[in-house]
């Protein structure tokens, strides 16, 4: 009798141990789903595909990766979709600053970054302040002077007023006591067209957008919006160097998981991402698209999540955008 009991205890504990051991390590056993909030061809989509290519090339993941596009609501649909998978180890989503900003200003949003599980911050995307090549502004000082002489006459093309480019404009206006107009266009294509066509005097764009037009001699970069000069534009001084004491708001990009993501899944992806950012293909990818490596995980990432949300909240309030969370 005792032997039978002992046998049972042995068997049960063995199963428990084995089960526990199985629960320790996580590895994807189905095709991996990467979630992005833009349509195909959009910024997040291209970035996610780039990351997937690097991961697959270096065989850092055992399954193939597919990209799921959940567009809508400026990221809110994707965030909502992710939050519905609470407690599950997938999908892994790619966030940008709109994931931080939009839940703050839209009451239709249902979840914020604080409730999701940030896994890693991968890059910080700088931006550059540009003007047409044939315009009289050679640097930021020229532009500010012109704005001072003609208040409200100069025009900046950009996205919505809660976007990064308008935030920069508001900060710059406040720091210099000047004022110029902001015109919203729905897409990058139309914004560049407005700048090139003379309907706007300046545009804050991504460095990768700017490269080709600079090469063709159509536009000029007058400032780098980052805390240090950009490798691709070593001759372009930053805003701070040109005397404008405004905080830079680089765009963070990284990966985030569903709320209450299992700890082993989170650890798995943290490790995979840490390996990815060390590969030469990743470095090549960053270099090509002029992105700054800004790998961050763990408690430092949590601090960043909190502080970035707060920073955005303050900037939005100052800009007169209604904050609901």
């Amino acid at each position, binding site marked *: 009798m005792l032997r039978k009991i002992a046998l049972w205890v042995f068997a049960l504990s063995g199963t428990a141990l084995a089960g526990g051991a199985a629960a320790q390590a996580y590895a994807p056993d189905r095709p991996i789903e990467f979630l992005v909030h833009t*349509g*195909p*061809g*959009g910024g997040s*989509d*291209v970035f996610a*595909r*780039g990351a997937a*290519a690097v991961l697959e090339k270096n065989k850092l993941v055992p399954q193939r990766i597919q990209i799921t*596009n*959940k*567009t*809508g*609501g*400026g990221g*809110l*649909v994707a965030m*909502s979709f992710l939050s519905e998978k609470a407690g599950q180890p997938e999908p892994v989503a790619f966030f940008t600053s709109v994931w931080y900003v939009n839940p703050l*200003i*839209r*009451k*239709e*949003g*249902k979840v914020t970054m604080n409730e999701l599980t940030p896994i890693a911050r991968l890059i910080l995307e700088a931006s550059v302040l540009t003007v047409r090549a044939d315009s009289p502004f050679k640097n930021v000082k020229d532009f500010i002077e012109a704005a001072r002489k003609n208040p*409200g*006459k100069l*025009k900046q093309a950009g*996205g*919505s*007023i*809660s976007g990064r480019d308008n935030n920069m404009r508001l900060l710059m206006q406040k720091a210099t006591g000047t004022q110029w*107009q*902001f*015109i*919203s*266009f*729905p*897409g*990058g*294509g*139309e914004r*560049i*067209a*407005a700048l*090139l*066509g*003379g*309907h706007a005097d300046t545009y804050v764009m991504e460095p990768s957008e700017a*490269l*080709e*037009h600079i*090469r*063709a001699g*159509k536009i000029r970069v007058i400032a780098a919006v980052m805390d240090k000069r950009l490798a691709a534009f070593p001759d372009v001084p930053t805003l701070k160097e040109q005397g404008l004491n405004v905080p830079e708001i680089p765009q963070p990009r990284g990966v985030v998981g569903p709320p209450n993501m299992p700890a082993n899944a989170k650890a798995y992806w943290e490790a995979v991402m840490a390996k990815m950012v060390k590969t030469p293909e990743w470095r090549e990818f960053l270099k090509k698209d002029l992105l700054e490596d800004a790998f961050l995980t763990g408690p430092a990432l949590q601090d960043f999540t909190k502080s970035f949300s707060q920073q955005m909240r303050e900037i939005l309030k100052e800009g007169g*955008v*209604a904050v609901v969370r």
Partner: protein
Amino acid sequence: MDVIANLMQGFAVALAPANLLWCFVGVFFGTIVGILPGLGPSATVALLLPLTFSMPPTSALIMLCGIYYGAKYGGSTTSILLNVPGESASVVTCFDGYQMAKNGRGGAALGIAAISSFVAGTFGVVALMLIAPPIASFALAFGPPEYFGLMMFGLAMVALLAGRSMVKALIALLVGLWLAQSGIDLFTDTSRFTFGRMELLDGVDFIVVAVGVFALGEVLQNIERRDAGQVLPVPKGMRNLMPTLQDLKDCRFAFLNGSVVGFLVGVLPGAGSTIASFISYGIEKAVSRHPEKFGTGVPEGVAAPEGANNAETGGALVPLLTLGIPGSGTTAVLLAALILWGFRPGPLLIAENPALFWGLVASMYVGNVLLLVMNLPLVPLFAQILRLPAYVLFPLIFGIAMVGVYSASDSVFDMWLLAFFGLLGYAMAKLDYPPAPFILGFVLGDPMERALRQSLMMSGGELTVLVSRPLSATLLAFACIILLIPLLTRLNALRLKAIEQAE
């Protein structure tokens, strides 16, 4: 001439057996995608993008572009036969195309659509090839006031789409305008008419509205009539299976109209093929000798919008290839594809990659020919769909609508919206409110408002900016002329009546 030499080299690339195959694959897929509502070329191009990484980039671009302009061919098929717009630009083809099918001339309508698409598509490629750089500068000169002028010109078309009651047409237009405002306001980031629903943050999807009002509205009307037999007379005899020479003669101007309007509107970033089709249709009706017949099934009413939406693909490629600026959803995906393949789209793309550009141009000629050859013989085959009895066909339409809408947005909420718009379409038909102005308002409402507010932001609140620039003033003048046409026609009719009575 340089162009000829380049083109010859381009054909050498395009006619290479592998590229020919990829071109065929692209246009074939494109046609299928066009036929199914909800599955659009931009989604399909994105879907096939990963496959292209193992292909040489020129072949990949040939295939993806094939999907793009192939979809425009396919979209007309369901519009004509079932009143289901397969692609947003095909909604205008529904107006006369479906009526032609109802009159037993469905085959002729399909044939006209294919021929017009071929003529205009080829025109678009020729224009792309010859005048891309100067046209690109023209496009850049189009600022917000000019866009406003263009949109008002488009909205003025309501005067031509009105039918019997102008008041009802205006009401329909205004409801469309109101619906267009649903969603996030770009400028102030506030939500309008979202009723707290996240799904409405981007506004109402065009496919939901178009399929609901046109397709479901028609189904409900048919159920009301309950004609259980064949819903539409099957075209018999070559006269009705294919366009006649008379049809082709009637459409001479429409071919030109569609080509030019489609290409020019396509060049403007942000102005899409739906706008091009509406404007082309309106111009055709305005210059026609029998405008009152539009809407009852005239071939020009099919040729003009079909041509416009095909020429638009050539136009949309202009800013993409000459400036690296995407003008529409599909060209945005193509831009991303070019970047992923290692190209640097921008003003120097053509100069640095002549084989890519000329190979693409040559293959677009080939593609258009392939599509014509593929589509024309299929016309009698497609027309046989009309043999299906109503009780099979119309539930199928319900189903296609459901699948199409769901596949476009992954949400059951959109299916509820579809049901709502189906009811609206039925009500509009019963109460004699024309659906064309409604769709017109819905399509143009957003771009028009945006252009107006951008213009006012540019000028600091001065309204005069809209008329002080030559291009926008001209467009607004055209808009006024269009609006006055019905008034002038009526005055002329009264005058003639007075003369008669005096005699």
